């Protein structure tokens, strides 16, 4: 029960952030979607043992969260909470990869630890980028962007319906789950049988709801075709946004900026 409530609350919060009205919010969604994809590809394409080379990429989330007025703590919390699989697999790296790759004086850092740290940083960057995308764009706009970029209409319509009814169904599910818990009278866990029953009833009610929605659609003249939503402009600002960030990511990918900066600084100091 708590998990539904918590998850939906997060969903609402992120969705609410998307209604902001900053400069980045107003950009055409296509630009933002494309930049996010380039970002992720750039980050993910770095070698397994790269760590410092990943750091410059943090510029993107930092800048965008600032420009888009997104609360850092909220996003950071979500990133931290959802790393389990990557962590669980990644934590075997230090076990299986013990060759020392970096020496810091007497200290030797194995490849395993480097790659593990790299995994954590990658996860933070990529997951953060996805959350930021939603925060500054909003789900319907993302779906429209996908539609404009060539995704089949049936799929984008599906995404929109899903988004629309997520909240309704979660509420319904939450109510039923709560009723079930309240009748558990302190018994610790609820078995799969009562779960199966709960889910079955929810399913049937959902099916009936689908029929009613279809009815409402027919009543408003629906005949099998979904029409595109309003038109958007991909203009100069969008192009600049895309070209600028993509170029930067390419640069970060090809040049190890951390290394460069470090060499300059230690050269100056030393």
């Amino acid at each position, binding site marked *: 029960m708590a998990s539904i409530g918590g998850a939906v609350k997060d969903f609402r919060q992120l969705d609410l952030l998307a209604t902001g009205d900053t400069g980045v919010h107003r950009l055409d969604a296509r630009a933002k979607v494309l930049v996010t994809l380039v970002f992720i590809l750039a980050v993910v394409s770095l070698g397994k043992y790269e760590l410092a080379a990943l750091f410059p990429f943090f510029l993107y989330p930092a800048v965008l969260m600032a420009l888009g007025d997104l609360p850092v703590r909220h996003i950071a919390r979500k990133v931290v909470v959802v790393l389990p699989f990557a962590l669980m697999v990644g934590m075997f790296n230090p076990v299986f990869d013990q060759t020392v790759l970096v020496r810091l004086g007497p200290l030797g850092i194995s490849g395993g630890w480097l790659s593990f740290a790299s995994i954590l940083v990658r996860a933070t960057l990529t997951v953060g980028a996805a959350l930021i995308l939603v925060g500054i764009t909003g789900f*319907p706009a993302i779906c429209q962007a996908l539609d404009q970029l060539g995704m089949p209409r049936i799929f984008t319509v599906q995404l929109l319906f899903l988004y*629309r009814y997520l909240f*309704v169904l979660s509420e319904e599910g939450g109510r039923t789950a709560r009723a079930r818990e309240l009748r558990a009278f302190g018994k610790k866990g609820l078995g799969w049988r009562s779960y199966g029953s709960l889910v079955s009833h929810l399913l049937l009610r959902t099916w009936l*709801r689908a029929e009613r929605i279809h009815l*409402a659609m027919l*009543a*408003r003249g629906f005949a099998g075709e979904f*029409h595109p*939503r309003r038109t958007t402009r991909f203009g100069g600002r969008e192009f600049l946004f895309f070209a600028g960030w993509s170029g930067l990511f390419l640069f970060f990918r090809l040049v190890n900026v951390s290394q460069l900066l470090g060499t300059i600084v230690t050269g100056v100091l030393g």
Partner: protein
Amino acid sequence: MSHHIVEVKDLRHVYPDGTEALRGVSFRITHGESVAVIGANGAGKSTLLLHLNGYLATSQGAIRIGDFPLTPATLPEIRRTVGMVFQDPDDQLFMPTVFDDVAFGPQNLGLVGDELEARVQEALARVGAGHLRDKPPYRLSGGEKKRVAIATVLAMSPDILVMDEPTSGLDPFARRQLMALLKDFHHTRIFTSHDLDMVLELCERTIVLHKGEVRADGPTLDIFRDEALLAACRLEKPFAMQGCPVCNR
């Protein structure tokens, strides 16, 4: 103008499981009338409504909306003429934002661009929901959802407005707002409702259904004065017409 007349002749409907929902319902509603269809649960109100825009096919009896008999060919035009608002606004608002929902109907009628925009604005303004334009439905209150649901239907410029339980689930203030709105409409209006006080205020004519048949059809006040009829149909007088609970008169 025959184009706003709703004529139902001897309508019968039997569901696949054998329930006889309608047993020969007949009535005639003319332009601009405001009619309530009341009755106990299971009396056939919803089934009747579902026939009015062709969702349920007429197997026995006939329905005529304006100049058109209800046939598969005339369905699109009928659905434009008869605007139906359902009981649960969550079923009616199925698009990601209010704007998209209100635009859905006109888009299906072929409107695009500026014309579409104007139509949507107008419909939202009519129900006082212009400021809700870009909101997703899940962030609207019950009253707001109902108003937006009406806007989605108004955007198609219907001649006849049919509403299933318009005031159900609304708090007193939202209910008042909605009633004020509905009073203002000049369409032919057909409501089903358990809210008999609303019926008293908004509808000059009432049709009483009981077990699939029309038990009474006449001026609202006359019907609400007939206690025997009401009792037989599992109804009672509107609270406004019952004794005062304070002074007992």
